[in-house]
Each structure stands twice: as C-alpha cells, then as structure tokens.
C-alpha cells in the first residue's frame, strides 16, 4: 500500500512541482526585469507576457496529448488523493463529519423507509383501502357485522370488500403441549382481496366460511417452521384449536403480513351469519378492507359509500354515538402508519438537519483549504487551465470526499441502526423490516453525493485571481463572509435541533412525573384469561374466582390484594355517557363520549393507591346479593351531579331497569393511556353471584415481595385451582413505563442528534475563528504593536463569534418557532413555543459557541507582534 502511494506520488510529482516551478520562474523573471530598471508593475506584467502565451500553448499541447476527460478525471482523482494524503487531518475530519451526518440519516431512513416509502407486500398495493366507521371509541376505523353485510351486498366502488374479526388468542394443541397463538377470523375472500395465495395448500373456499362448515385453518410460515418443523406433509393434518379439532389446509408465505400489522399464527374462517338476530350482528365488531376498482379514487369511493354509511349509521350505531361517528376510507398505508407518520417525518427531518450541519462544516473546511490553495489554483489558471477545468478539479475532490463519506456513513449507519433497533420500543411498526438494503444504500449514496455537490460547489465557484499569484494574503477576505454565513446557518439549524430536543425532553419529563391518580411503585400485577370451554358457564367462572381469591389473599407477604377485570392506565372499552340515567333527575346530555368502567373487589382502591374523595370503599358484606353498588370517579361524579352530593344516589347504567347505588367517589386515575386526561369512570363491585366475572382478570398486590417470588406463589395457587392457565406477572412500574417507551425513544433520538449537531456547530465556529486568527495574525500584530491589549484582541475575536452566533441564533429561533409547531402532536403538556425550551436551547448554543471561540481568541491574544510582522 505504501509502495503504491509512493509510486503514485513520484509519478505525479512533476506535475505539481511544475506549477511551483513556474511560479518560481515568474518570480525570478520579475526580479530580473526589476533589476533591468522596469517599474514593479511593469516588471510583473512583462514577466507574465514573456511567459504567458507559451505556457497556454503548453497546457493545450498537454491537453491534446491527454485522452479526453477520462484522463482528466483520473488526473483530478489522483490529484485529489494526493491532496488528501498531504493533509490527513483535514481528510479525516471531513470524512468523519460527513459519515456522522450520512450515517444518522441512513439509519433513520432505513427505519422509516418501510413505513413511508417502500411498497406494501401486496400486488397493486395502491388499490388497497381500509373502510369503516370512525369514532371516538377507537383510533382506527371499524365496522359491525350487520352494516358490513349490507355494504357487501350494495357497494359499488370496490372490486372486492373483505373483513376480519379482531385479534384473539387461541389455545393450540399440536402433538403434546398446548400453547397460546394469535388467531384471526377472516372472510373467505380475505387473501384474494390482498392478492396473496398460500405457499402450500389452498386458500379458504366460500363453503369453508359457511356458519356450520367443518373448521379448516391456514397457518403462518413461522408457526409451520417452529411448531411443525417445516413438515411438507402438514396439509390435511388435524390439530386442536380452542378445544375443537381443525384441519390445516395451507401455509401462507413468509412475507405475508396482516393488513393491520398484527402478529398472527392462525387464520380461521370468520363465518358471518346473516341469520343471527340484528342485535347480535350489530354488536359484533369487524375490520373491513377493500380493493378499489380500476380508476376509482379514494375520494370517489368515499362519495359512493356515503349512502350506505348513512343507512348503516341509522340502523347499527347507537343514537348517542351517531354525531361523533363518520365514514372513513383511507389507503392501507395510511391506516397502518397514521400513528407514527408524524414521528417518522420528524425523525427524518432531524437526521437531515444533522446532515446539513455536517455539510456546512465540510464546506467550511473545503473553503479553508481552497484559501490555502489559492496560489496553486491561480498558477494553474495563469498557465491556461480553464475555469471549468478548475471547477471540475474541486468537484472531483468533493465527490471523492462524498464517496468516502458514503462508505463511512453506511458503516456508521449500520451501527446506528443496530443501536436504534435495540433502543426501539416494542411494536414500532415494521421495525423488523428495517435493514441496510439496496434502497437504503442508494439513499446513502444520494445524500452523500448531494451533500458533496452542495459543499463542493461553493469553494469551486470562487474565481481564481491573478493577484493570488503574488500577494495571496490580500485576496483572502471575500470567502470569509461566506464562511461566516455557513457558521450562522449551522448555528441556526443546530438550534432547531436543540429546541426540538429540549421540547421532547420536557414533554417526556412531564409525562413521567405527572400524577397518574394511582401509585405504581411496589405494585405487582398478575394477569390471566380463562379460555377453556367449561368457563363459558358463569357458575364455573364464579367458582373459579371465589376459590382463587381465597387462595391469593393468603399469600404470605402478599400485602393489599384486589382483583379486577382490567387495570389502569388502560381501561375497558367505555360505554356511552348518555346511556346512564339518574333516579329522579332529568335525562343526561346526549353528547358526552364514553365512560370507562371496571368490575373490582373491595380493596382495589387501597391496592392501587387511588384516593377516595368522599364516601367509602366497597365492603365484602355487600357482595352476597343485590345490585352491585357503584363508585364514581371524581370527574364522572362532577359531570353527573355538579355540586350535588352523589352518595346515596341511584343510577341506571345500561337502560335495563337495574339501579345501582353510589357509595363513594374515587380520585381520577389514568384510564386511556397516560398522555391524555382520564376518561370519566365508574367501578362496580364483583358480586358473589356472578355479575362482573368475565374471563379476563388481573390480581393486584401492593407488596414488598419481589416479582419472582410473587410470580412463583401466584402460579402455584393458580395451578391448585386449575393447572394450565398461563399467568403473566409484571411490576406496575414496568407496565406504566411501556406507555412512555415511544416518547422516550423519540426524545432520546432527537437529543442525540441535537448533541451531535451541537458538537459539529462548535467545531464549525472553532474552525472559522481559528482561520480568521491565522489570517489576521499580521493585523493583530500591528494592533498589538500599536498598543492594543491582549484582552481587547480576545474580545474582538469573541465579538466576531458573538455576531455570527447571534445571527444564527436569531434565525434559528424563527425557524424553530415555525418547525416545532409541526410536531405539536408529539408533545405532551408542552407548547411548541415553550419559552423555557427556546431560551435554554439558545443559551446552551451561545455558551458553547463562546467556548468554541475561546481557544482561537486566546491564541489571538498571544500573538507576538514581532513574529507576526516578520512572517510575511
């Protein structure tokens, strides 16, 4: 390798030596002319005249000898390589700066590419849409069986309309051990709508989907591999799903994903039954997807579906919800990513901002280098190298830098991506597909080359001047302004990043320190679901829970214990507020959204640490018989009763003529995620005679036991009642922590970007000021000789830094106030114009810029006038 360098160096040495030699020749000639009695100017012109034309010819001859541009390119490349070899520090700084910028944006791009850009894994994916009712109940559109059956009969805009049931968990027995797998019921035309055919076996046929047909299933590639060992003879094999024997008829391709991106193992026929009573079908939820007819747009489809939607609304949606429900038809991609779209774009923006800062740094470095090489370029121009030739030389250099940066960037991108994937919270959409692929490499190459052109073009455009041949220091002033602008721009962009980071961090801090309404510390949860056929009977469930409750209460050290059907910070899907009635009061307002509810045992509030506002907790004695009593959340009590005392009032919850007495009011606790205000909520007592015993339960323990010990106890007690019920034990803190995973991920990513951006900006400020000091050392020397104190000089340099940082900060503040408004939706309880975030970001930046300026300023203050003046 070194031999190669040496040989390259020797081979091309004559060419540069040539330029220097010609320069030296010109000088000697000029001096000789002076000695002959010519004036300085005349001597200079004469020297150029005597030399010029023949040199131009020389360059032309050389060009004629050279085989066209390829040779030039080769020459430029080698020239550039030699240049890099001469100043390895410059080269390293430039490449690593670029690599950081490209690496960060490449990693981010590879994460969001499958979300925003890559086509979905279905043929003609642009025709696929999700369609349904959209209301406050769910963040995604849904449908009900009764409406869907009508839509399917009468719709016009779609080639195919299909449906699936919400995810469920099934018990699968294949061979010995039962296991839980993710199941979906889908319509017979489901896969055909998406253009997917099984890898093995056949798709569902219409007769499989009839209400009483023998059950057949399709399985995922993963299940096939993991449970059946990729057995090619699997078709027709019978396994047990939810205690029913079913036949496997096909295996789906590995790349198949459910349209709502859910994990899945088994597809069952959905078996819609139009003969069921309307009240059943209108309460049975579906997700509906469709493939648009050729040439029909989403807007067209929406218009055509409108009458069906209106009709369905009247038939199937409770009056209370009608005003808040609308028709939704949107592309499948939009359906999949609407929750993460804003965050994805924001991250890409942040990464590109980082890249811009890196570019500004490199442009600055190249400009500084161009200044140092001005004489070389002027000589080349003087001996006839055309302007285009020189620009090409500069561009070759920056393109080479760009390529090197691309290679480094891909490497770093790979590392960043690894870190990103490790840090990413669960359930980040399509994270599994994020990889450095060809598209991503092309992106990296594109950004690197675009960056290279961007920062290469600036120095290249500078016109070489004839003066540079003689007194090159004089001509140094012009690009300094450009460089300062670059620094100001860097400061501005990095301020935007910094503001973003501080907004996200503040938002995260607020999210994590806000009162939840309950105390998650020292709280352990154990959740499980009864799936067996025999628990279909209420009596079996009641018996199970009574036995279990007695056992769990006696766990040594179990602390306060309670049982509930769900726990904060989530809740059950709520019921319409307007369904409720208060005895002796006028009906409630028709609007009012949903009210969450839970079935709990006495001690629930104590275990969770929810304060009672008035009234009392439930009592065990009340569980024997009668209507379950009621405890309201503070916000629900206020909404229903205002300043009236709710205790002792009677409420009808479900228009069923059953009235429950309010015995207490509990403080609000988060019940629909932690980033929104708690929905109003009521609690009912789990009675001994049945009401309230669903299949799913969570046992709560406020205890000083550790997770593992408690888990062991709970499993043992559960197994004593019914072996084979899987249970999940988790700390409440971990459970709550998951709700802040995403904001934390975003905040930390933006913070890292901002920190890198800050360092790069500081390097930029430092670099420009160092150069300024180096170039002005003579002037500084003169000033000092004339009596300026070192302190004045240092302040002068700091002043320069101050002005340009100030301009950058001002521009950055304006930019931030515009850009941060775009990410309002990602912030919790923090205004995008949050003054403390803006000022702290500006402050940090100003301090860092001052620190970066400090070193050059000190250097300026130490300039020795004698040395500085003698230097020229």
């Amino acid at each position, binding site marked *: 390798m070194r031999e190669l360098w040496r040989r390259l160096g020797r081979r091309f040495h*004559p060419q540069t030596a040539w330029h220097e*030699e010609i320069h*030296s*020749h010109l*000088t*000697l000639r000029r001096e*000789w002319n002076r000695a002959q009695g010519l004036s300085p100017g005349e001597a200079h012109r004469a020297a150029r005249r005597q030399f010029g034309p023949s040199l131009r010819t*020389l360059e032309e001859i050389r060009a004629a*000898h050279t085989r066209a541009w390829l040779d030039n390119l080769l020459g430029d490349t080698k020239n550039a390589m030699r240049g890099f070899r001469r100043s390895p520090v410059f080269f390293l700084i430039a490449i690593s700066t670029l690599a950081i910028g490209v690496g960060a944006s490449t990693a981010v791009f590879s994460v969001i590419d499958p979300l925003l850009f890559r086509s979905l894994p279905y043929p003609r994916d642009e025709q696929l849409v999700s369609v349904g009712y959209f209301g406050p109940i769910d963040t995604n559109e849904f449908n009900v069986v009764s409406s869907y059956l009508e839509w399917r009969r009468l719709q016009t805009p779609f080639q195919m309309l299909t449906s699936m049931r919400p995810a469920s968990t099934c018990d699968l027995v294949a061979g010995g051990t039962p296991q839980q797998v993710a199941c979906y019921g889908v319509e017979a035309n489901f896969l055909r709508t998406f253009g997917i055919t099984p890898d093995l076996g056949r798709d569902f046929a219409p007769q499989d989907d009839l209400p009483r047909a023998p059950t057949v299933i399709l399985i995922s590639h993963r299940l096939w591999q993991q449970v059946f060992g990729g057995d090619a003879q699997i078709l027709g094999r019978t396994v047990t799903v939810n205690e029913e024997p079913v036949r496997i008829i096909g295996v789906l391709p590995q790349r198949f994903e459910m349209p709502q991106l859910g994990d899945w193992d088994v597809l069952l026929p959905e078996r819609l039954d139009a003969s069921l009573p309307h009240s059943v079908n209108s309460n049975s939820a579906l997700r509906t997807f469709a493939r648009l007819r050729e040439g029909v747009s989403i807007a067209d489809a929406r218009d055509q579906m409108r009458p069906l939607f209106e009709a369905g609304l009247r038939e199937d949606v409770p009056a209370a919800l009608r005003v808040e429900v609308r028709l939704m038809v949107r592309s499948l991609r939009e359906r999949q990513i609407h929750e993460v779209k804003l965050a994805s774009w924001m991250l890409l923006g942040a990464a590109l901002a980082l890249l811009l800062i890196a570019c500004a740094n490199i442009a600055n470095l190249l400009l500084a280098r161009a200044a140092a090489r001005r004489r070389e370029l002027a000589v080349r121009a003087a001996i006839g190298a055309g302007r285009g030739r020189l620009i090409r030389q500069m561009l070759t250099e920056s393109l080479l830098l760009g390529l090197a940066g691309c290679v480094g960037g891909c490497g770093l991108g790979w590392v960043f991506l690894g870190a990103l994937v490790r840090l990413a919270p669960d359930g980040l959409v399509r994270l599994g597909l994020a990889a450095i692929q060809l598209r991503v490499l092309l992106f990296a190459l594109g950004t690197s080359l675009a960056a290279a052109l961007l920062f290469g073009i600036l120095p290249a455009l500078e016109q070489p001047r004839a003066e540079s041949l003689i007194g090159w220091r004089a001509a140094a002033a012009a690009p300094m302004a450009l460089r300062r602008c670059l620094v100001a721009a860097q400061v501005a962009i990095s301020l935007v990043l910094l503001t973003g980071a501080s907004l996200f961090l503040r938002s995260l801090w607020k999210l994590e320190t806000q009162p939840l309404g309950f105390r998650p510390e020292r709280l352990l949860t154990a959740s499980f679901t009864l799936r067996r056929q025999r628990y279909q009977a209420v009596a079996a469930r009641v018996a199970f829970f009574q036995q279990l409750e007695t056992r769990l209460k006696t766990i040594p050290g179990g602390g306060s214990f309670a049982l509930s059907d769900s726990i904060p910070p989530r809740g059950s899907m709520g019921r319409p507020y307007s369904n409720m009635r208060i005895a002796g009061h006028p009906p409630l307002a028709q609007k009012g959204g949903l009210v969450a509810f839970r079935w709990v045992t006495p001690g629930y509030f104590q275990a969770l640490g929810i304060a009672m506002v008035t009234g009392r907790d439930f009592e065990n004695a009340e569980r024997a018989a009668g209507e379950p009593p009621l405890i309201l959340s503070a916000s629900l009590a206020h909404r229903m009763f205002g300043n009236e005392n709710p205790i002792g009032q009677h409420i009808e919850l479900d228009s069923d003529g059953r009235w429950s007495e309010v015995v207490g009011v509990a403080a609000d606790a988060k019940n629909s995620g932690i980033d929104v205000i708690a929905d109003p909520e009521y609690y009912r007592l789990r009675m001994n005679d049945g009401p309230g015993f669903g299949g799913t339960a969570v046992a709560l323990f406020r205890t000083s036991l550790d997770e593992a010990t408690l888990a062991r106890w709970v499993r043992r007690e559960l197994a004593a009642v019914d072996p084979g019920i899987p249970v999940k034990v988790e700390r409440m803190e971990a459970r709550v922590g998951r709700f802040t995973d995403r904001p934390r991920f975003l905040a930390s990513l933006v913070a890292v970007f901002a920190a890198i951006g800050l360092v790069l900006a500081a390097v930029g400020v430092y670099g420009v000021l160092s150069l300024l000091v180096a170039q002005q050392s003579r002037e500084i020397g003169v000033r000092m000789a004339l009596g300026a104190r070192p302190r004045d000089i240092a302040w002068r340099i700091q002043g320069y830094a101050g002005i340009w940082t100030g301009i950058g900060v001002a521009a950055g503040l304006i930019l931030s106030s515009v850009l941060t408004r775009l990410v309002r939706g990602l912030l919790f309880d923090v205004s995008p114009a949050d003054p403390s975030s803006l000022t702290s970001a500006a402050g940090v930046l100003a301090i860092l810029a001052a620190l970066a300026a400090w070193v050059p300023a000190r250097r300026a203050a130490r300039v020795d006038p004698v040395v500085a003046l003698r230097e020229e």
Partner: protein
Amino acid sequence: MEDPARRGDRPQGTLELLILKTLSRGANHGFGITLHIQTVSDGLLRVEEGSLYPALHRMEAQKLVKGDWRVTENGRRARFYSLTDTGKRRLAEAETNWALVAKGVQKVLRFA
C-alpha cells in the same frame, strides 16, 4: 497507462544539448538556464519556456539531470538542476554527435 513523463519523447537534440552544456558549468534553475543561453549566444538563441520545462522534466525522468529545491542568492526558492553521471556521458556523446552533424550539415550546405 503510458508514463506521462515519457510521453511525446522524441529527439530534441538541440535544446537538450544546450541544457546539458549549460548545466555542465554548474547547477542552475530554469530561468538561469534561459538567461545563460540567451546571454552567451548574444541573444541569438531564445529558449521558449514552454519547451524548456517539459525538456527538463523529461531529462529528469531519463535521469540525465537531477532537480531539487534550493534558495537563490536573492533568497527565492527555485528548482535547481544539476548533471548526473548519465547526463555527463550523454553530454559527451551529444557534443561529438553535434560536431559530426554540424560538419555533415555544413558539407551539404556547401555542396548545394
């Protein structure tokens, strides 16, 4: 790839001889060589800078001369060329050749 230093290599007898001869008096830089040839020939011979430097570099590649950067009496940096041993031999050959060629040319001229 063709060696750029040897590109366009063709007999450049006269200039080469003049350079070798000039350098036989001691190391000199390009401008010095121009000046020397011009002065000694009483201004009859004017060396084109455009051919001088390519010739010098070619001769350096052929190891006839050796160049290195030095400082002139006036304190300027310049590239000084000096004869190598090969160069000295080449000068002897070239001088003999030149004498023969000159004699030959003279004869032809006189005959015509």
